[in-house]
């Protein structure tokens, strides 16, 4: 029974000691979810504390439902990223949909109107039998939910790798906007205040599977198997509007969405943070099904529900708002001074637990870990010479590089009327204007799992650096990140080693780039049959564009403009996309990340944009310089010609993935000023090519842009609609 609940004998003994008795079934269920990896972060917590989490613009860092940053003029941006990996593998449409719904609730819980969604998706090999149905289900689910709620889906990532065959990743990010003095928190302060349940009714959705299989618990196995959660975006939309309406009244003391572990974790977290007790009358909980037990009610993960602590005397006016939006609403209990969670059901006390120990004494592990074996450095001279344009065409049609139009045309990218750059546009980050102003938020999600796998520490740094670079390139001041740390089983030292070192790399980059972590999520145990996913610490970055009249992105080009490269090129091909896609070799040391250089190059580009000295900027990442130029060509519809290198072999020069680089498009009359600036700042700025008619040219080898575009656009539709 205890094992069925996922508690170790030692954890159970600790629990009994705290209670001074054995817990009853309800209490056991509650404690087991509170102490689960998902809720307690027991394997990851000590390492997450390495992240820098404060800064001049941080209003609220990790610990609340989402992170909050100051974006001037009394405005705040609120954002978080979260995984829904396992549910999306079981039921891709609903799994992805409820992932989107869940992350939106974390954001509007804090008082923000959600204004943008992003999704970082990793699927198995394109040819794997499950991939196509998973892709179509996940994409339809993301669109089905976000489109209906009416929040634009503006960006994300999509990679394919056999390492995700049995365990896809669906990481959803939501960004919202609020007034900086109107942020709502989850601490339930004060005694005797009403607890309001609002939103959907509680059903038997997603109740902990392992527990349900227990024979002692039920003779009625079939009916009680955990039920897949189904998302109801229509209810979510009304919940957003109703909660924002209630927030404007001043009736709220605390508010919290019911996420994982539903009523249990929301009530306990609110009480714990507020230092109070909570009493709930389970007979008052709105139910979707008859005869639900207290255990089921407390562990249900039905979607689209919130818990609110109200100021005394505001019950009636608060209820009216939810009634108007045709949502279920009930006062189900109150805060107390006992410091205990007391649940009653049919006039009986069915649970009486001290709250503080549940969180304070939650197990914490410093799990043993082992450093990843150092990867060999790839010697570029061992690679054969190839026609560069041919290689470029193949690279641009590789699964990770090919156009994702098939995906993003299923997403409403423009609802709310403020999307300035979304997936389709030439911009390294999505750009969403703050309504009615001349400023905007830029946002991006990044991770290069093949780097992290080869060297978790460098890969962790790189994920943060690339995120920061993308924001710089899109004209923003990078402010802070959220993240979603997707790894395998932490009880295996080699996996724990990936986790620890990736976190350390990320933390170092965040510190060096003044780019703190304000929220995040950890998803462990991403394995099937003992095979772990490639380590995937996804970074969600948010930045501020203060003045929209300055140049952003790389969607425009003028023939005759010059292409200049910021940063140094050594021709690093280890763990590059070129090595994997063209030569079929993987697992070499990834490109080093020099954070000081990264910082200086970024600040230089930022000043160049600020002085309007550039027409377009693109960061150089997967596929190197040639792929960056091809992106610019495809976004602007103008051809690009890159010159070869006197020093490096063609593959290293065009496709090397050295970090900290940007490709700038400059008109001839701004060149001198730009060069002066580079000289003053001691920045490497070199001529690499120019904007030409309608060919894409690498040295003397060239092809029609239209042909490249055709191939690039065609790969994903061909996969999905063959």
């Amino acid at each position, binding site marked *: 029974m205890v094992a069925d609940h996922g508690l170790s004998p030692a954890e159970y003994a600790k629990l009994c000691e705290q209670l001074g008795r054995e817990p009853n079934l309800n209490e056991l269920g509650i404690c087991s979810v509170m102490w689960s990896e998902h809720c307690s972060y027991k394997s990851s917590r000590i390492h997450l504390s390495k992240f820098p989490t404060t800064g001049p613009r941080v209003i609220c860092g990790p610990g609340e439902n989402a992170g909050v940053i100051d974006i001037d003029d009394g405005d705040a941006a609120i954002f978080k990223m979260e995984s829904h990996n396992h549910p999306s593998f079981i039921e891709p449409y609903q799994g992805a949909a409820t992932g989107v719904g869940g992350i939106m609730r974390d954001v509007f819980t804090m008082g923000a109107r959600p204004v943008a969604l992003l999704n970082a998706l990793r699927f198995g090999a394109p040819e794997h039998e499950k991939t196509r149905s998973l892709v179509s289900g996940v994409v339809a689910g993301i669109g089905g939910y976000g489109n209906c709620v009416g929040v634009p889906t503006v960006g994300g990532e999509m990679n394919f790798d056999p390492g995700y065959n049995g365990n896809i990743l669906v990481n959803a990010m939501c960004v919202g906007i609020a007034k900086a003095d109107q942020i709502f928190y989850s601490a339930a302060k004060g005694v005797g205040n009403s607890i309001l349940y609002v939103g959907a009714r509680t059903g038997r959705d997603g109740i902990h599977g392992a527990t349900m299989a227990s024979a002692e618990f039920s003779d009625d196995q079939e009916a009680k198997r955990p039920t897949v959660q189904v998302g*109801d975006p229509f209810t979510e939309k009304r919940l957003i509007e109703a909660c924002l309406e209630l927030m404007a009244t001043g009736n709220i003391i605390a508010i919290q969405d019911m996420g994982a572990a539903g009523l249990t974790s929301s009530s306990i977290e609110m009480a714990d943070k507020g230092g109070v007790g909570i009493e709930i009358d389970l007979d008052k909980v709105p139910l979707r099904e008859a005869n639900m037990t207290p255990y089921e009610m407390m562990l249900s993960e039905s979607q689209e529900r919130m818990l609110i602590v109200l100021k005394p005397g505001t019950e009636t006016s608060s209820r009216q708002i939810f009634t108007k939006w045709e949502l279920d609403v009930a006062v189900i209990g109150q805060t107390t001074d006992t410091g205990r969670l007391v649940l009653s059901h049919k006039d009986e006390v069915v649970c009486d637990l001290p709250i503080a120990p549940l969180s304070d004494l939650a197990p914490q592990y410093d799990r043993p870990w082992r450093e990843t074996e150092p990867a060999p450095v790839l010697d570029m001279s061992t690679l054969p010479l190839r026609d560069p344009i041919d290689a470029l065409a193949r690279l641009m049609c590789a699964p990770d590089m090919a156009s994702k139009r098939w995906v993003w045309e299923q997403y*409403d990218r423009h609802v709310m*009327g403020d999307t300035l750059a979304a997936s389709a546009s030439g911009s390294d980050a999505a750009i969403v204007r703050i309504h009615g102003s001349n400023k905007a938020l830029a946002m991006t999600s990044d991770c290069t799992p093949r780097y992290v796998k080869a060297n978790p520490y460098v890969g962790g740094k790189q994920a943060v650096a690339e995120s920061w670079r993308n924001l710089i390139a899109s004209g923003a001041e990078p402010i802070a990140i959220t993240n979603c740390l997707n790894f395998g089983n932490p009880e295996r030292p080699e996996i724990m080693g990936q986790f620890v070192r990736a976190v350390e790399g990320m933390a170092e980059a965040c510190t060096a780039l003044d780019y703190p972590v304000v929220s995040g999520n950890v998803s462990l145990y991403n394995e099937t049959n003992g095979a772990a996913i490639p380590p995937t610490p996804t970074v969600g970055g948010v930045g501020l564009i203060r003045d929209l009249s300055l140049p952003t992105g790389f969607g425009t080009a003028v023939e005759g403009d010059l292409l200049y490269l910021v940063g140094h090129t050594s021709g690093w091909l280890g763990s590059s996309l070129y090595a994997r896609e063209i030569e079929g070799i993987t697992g070499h040391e990834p490109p080093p990340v020099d954070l000081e250089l990264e910082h200086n190059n970024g600040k230089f580009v930022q000043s160049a944009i600020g002085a309007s000295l550039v027409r377009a900027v693109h960061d150089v990442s997967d596929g190197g310089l040639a792929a960056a130029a091809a992106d610019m060509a495809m976004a602007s519809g103008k051809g690009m010609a890159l010159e070869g290198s006197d020093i490096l072999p063609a593959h290293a020069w065009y496709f090397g993935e050295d970090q900290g680089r940007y490709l700038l498009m400059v008109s001839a009359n701004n060149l001198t000023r730009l060069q002066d600036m580079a000289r003053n700042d001691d920045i490497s700025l070199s001529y690499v090519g120019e904007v030409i008619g309608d060919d894409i040219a690498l040295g003397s080898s060239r092809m029609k842009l239209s042909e490249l575009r055709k191939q690039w656009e065609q790969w994903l539709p061909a996969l999905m609609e063959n």
Partner: protein
Amino acid sequence: MRAAVIVFPGSNCDRDAASALAQVTGQAPLMVWHQSNELPAVDLVVLPGGFAYGDYLRPGAMAARSVIMREVCKHAEAGGLVAGICNGFQVLSEVGLLPGVLMRNAGLKFVCKPVALQVERIDTPFTSQYSQKSPITIPVAHHDGNFYASQDELTRLEDQGQVVFRYVDNPNGSANNIAGIVNQANNVLGMMPHPERAMGTTGDGGDGVLFFKSLLGGFR
């Protein structure tokens, strides 16, 4: 010009429509809740895009039966202007103010992209500022925009010149490439594309501005 935007639970382009109207008319429209049994005296009623009632059962079906729609129908019968955009078009066809049905897209997927539209009529209150010469570009974003009507109905629509916008490159399988139609009296229009998303403020070409300017033209 006085305008009202109807808000159903699940409408999500209501604010966008209001912003576009305010941009062109200089005056914020009235936002009218679906349960209201009174429509303020206005020249134009906009049924906005979105997913009223989640698009459950059929898009527009439940919204068409809401209290306010009785008033909207009266307004239309009295000659007042009604514009249904996207979900609003679906509501208008469900309530019978416009013929036909918007079925699931032929590709069965949601489609969000800018599309080229031929303006077929410039003698309606919704299109008087356009020219018929070159197509305009307006985004679509819908799952159910595949216009269907019986063959007889289609013939009638064409004969009476009720087709106002036609897709240059059909994104959803609509019969006769129909993107927008008016009723016989020319005062009720439904269209799937979103002119309120082409107001020239988000890097779009601004081709939606003339739609709202046309409306203004009749009431200055």
